[in-house]
């Protein structure tokens, strides 16, 4: 900005220059505090899990044991639950969210679109414990009485839908997560679609493509990076989601093929057991689970942010 030229004039008083430097330094320090917080977070997770890391090493990641009495801990059932529930969530929320984003960006008149987008953003603002509360008292009975018996009687020949079912479990948690991640997919994908230049659509329509063909074969591929970004972003949200999952997953550390079985996830075991973990090794094992979750979400989020930045840049350059 032009300010540097102004400041270098010899007529400017020295005190102004000192004040200027101080103001700049203060703002800089507060910005740097964000980096500091992140570094402290990494250090604390690393330090806090030291006991557990030294004791079990890499074995921790592949062991299915979880025994606070003998202090034998393994992360596999928790990682399994986290991955399965998040995958189920995306399986539902990606088609739904992308479809809704297409409607909002391509079809709906601007007024209706912004009204509906506002409502969808409110959906994202609902606290996760509220989702958990509702799911526990409405979705869980529904699953136990109707959905799960139905799945067993029709698709019961698949190992996915066998065994006992109590309403809580991987499938229920996946459904709740899908509802929670849809708003993120919609709002980020919608913006990626809106950033596609008008000429792309006009060219396809002029060649005789229908509205849907234009959208699906031209507009969506053009915005694909932003859409992938939105999917990764909601994947990271789903992996770290705690309260709603804890309340409906059943909290049993087990690995089974059945989606109806009750399971657990990294975030829910930390939420459920951290305040009761009494021995240092037990605490360290839980902190190490936190470290695993942190690493997972950082990797996925880092990729998502890069993709979203790439599309917005592309869009703004051409329009």
């Amino acid at each position, binding site marked *: 900005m032009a300010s540097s030229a102004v400041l270098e004039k010899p007529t400017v008083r020295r005190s102004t220059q000192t004040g200027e430097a101080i103001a700049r330094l203060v703002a800089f320090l507060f910005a740097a505090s964000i980096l500091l917080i992140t570094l402290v977070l990494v250090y604390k997770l690393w330090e806090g899990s030291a006991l557990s890391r030294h004791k079990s090493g890499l074995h921790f990641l592949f062991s299915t044991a979880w025994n606070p009495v003998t202090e034998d801990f393994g992360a596999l059932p928790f990682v399994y639950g986290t991955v399965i529930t998040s995958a189920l969530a995306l399986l539902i929320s990606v088609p739904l969210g992308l479809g809704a984003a297409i409607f909002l960006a391509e079809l709906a008149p601007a007024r209706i679109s912004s009204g509906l987008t*506002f409502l969808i953003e409110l959906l994202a603002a609902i606290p996760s*414990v509220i989702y958990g509360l*509702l799911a526990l008292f409405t979705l869980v009975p529904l699953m136990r009485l109707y959905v799960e018996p139905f799945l067993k009687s029709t698709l019961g020949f698949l190992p996915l839908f066998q065994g006992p079912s109590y309403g809580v479990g991987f499938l229920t948690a996946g459904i709740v997560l899908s509802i929670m991640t849809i708003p993120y997919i919609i709002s980020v994908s919608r913006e990626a679609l809106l950033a596609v230049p008008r000429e792309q659509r006009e060219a396809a329509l002029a060649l005789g493509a229908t509205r849907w063909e234009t959208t699906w074969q031209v507009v969506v591929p053009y915005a694909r990076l932003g859409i992938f970004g939105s999917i990764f972003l909601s994947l990271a949200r789903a992996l770290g989601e705690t309260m709603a999952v804890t309340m409906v997953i059943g909290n049993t550390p087990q690995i089974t093929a059945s989606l109806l079985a009750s399971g657990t996830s990294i975030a829910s075991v930390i939420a459920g057991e951290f305040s009761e973990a009494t021995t240092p090794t037990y605490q360290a094992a839980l902190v190490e689970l936190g470290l695993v979750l942190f690493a997972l979400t950082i990797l996925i*989020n880092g990729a998502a942010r890069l993709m979203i930045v790439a599309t917005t840049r592309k869009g703004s350059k051409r329009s």
Partner: protein
Amino acid sequence: MWRKTINVVMLAMTGIFTLLTVSTLFLILGYLLYYGGRSLDWNFFTKLPLPAGELGGGMANAIVGSVKIVGVAALIGLPVGFLAGVYLSEYEDKAFGPLVRYVADLLNGIPSIVVGILAWSLVAVPMKSFSGLAGAVALAVMLIPIVSRQTEQFLREVPLSLREGALALGASKWRMIATVVVPAGSKGVLTGMILGVARIAGESAPLLFTSFNNQFWGGGITEPTASLPVMIYFRAISAYDDWHRQAWAAGLVLIGMVLTANIMARLVLARGISVPRG
């Protein structure tokens, strides 16, 4: 012909998907109003929780506790986030600015429960006790990246001509920021702050093992402190019908506060400003 059919069918599907998504919002609000409204009474706001099995009681301590924890978190998080946002918008340099921005976005995406572990090890472990302060630190860490990114985006929207006008009148750069840029962007910045505080007010995961819970009023900020979201969790997973009733009531109160803040921020304050995502 079939191309046209596919066209109509797929376009109709996208509309149905949108309706499905939006209707979940009304479904959620409807359930909360029905069950919560039935359970909400004056005692909820004035009485302490009763031991399991006894009917009645309220969550007065959790409401006050939530206000305390969120208040302290806002006292720490808002100024830090605001000044970091001022740096990103006004003082940014080539290498450091983008780095801070990227890390802030990453920090924003870290699961809240992991942030809880940070606050636990920074505050609860040295103090050898769960405390409201530890919960406030966790929430502040979540608030900082939200507020800094929103402040940055709103300050950037302040037109260049306003800045040039101030500089031409002889104002130094920080005077220009303090007297021209920040007031001009204040509506948006305030909106961002309200949205950020509303977001952390509903968090329960990072509070479970930092501020924990308390059946009584609790003393200061250094003792375990009850909060509305944590109360909802413990009441909902309990085995007592009367506690479930209270969880619904608390859910209605919490969603009322969060949605009011959101609607206010987006409709009233932000009229004419587009609200960037958190």
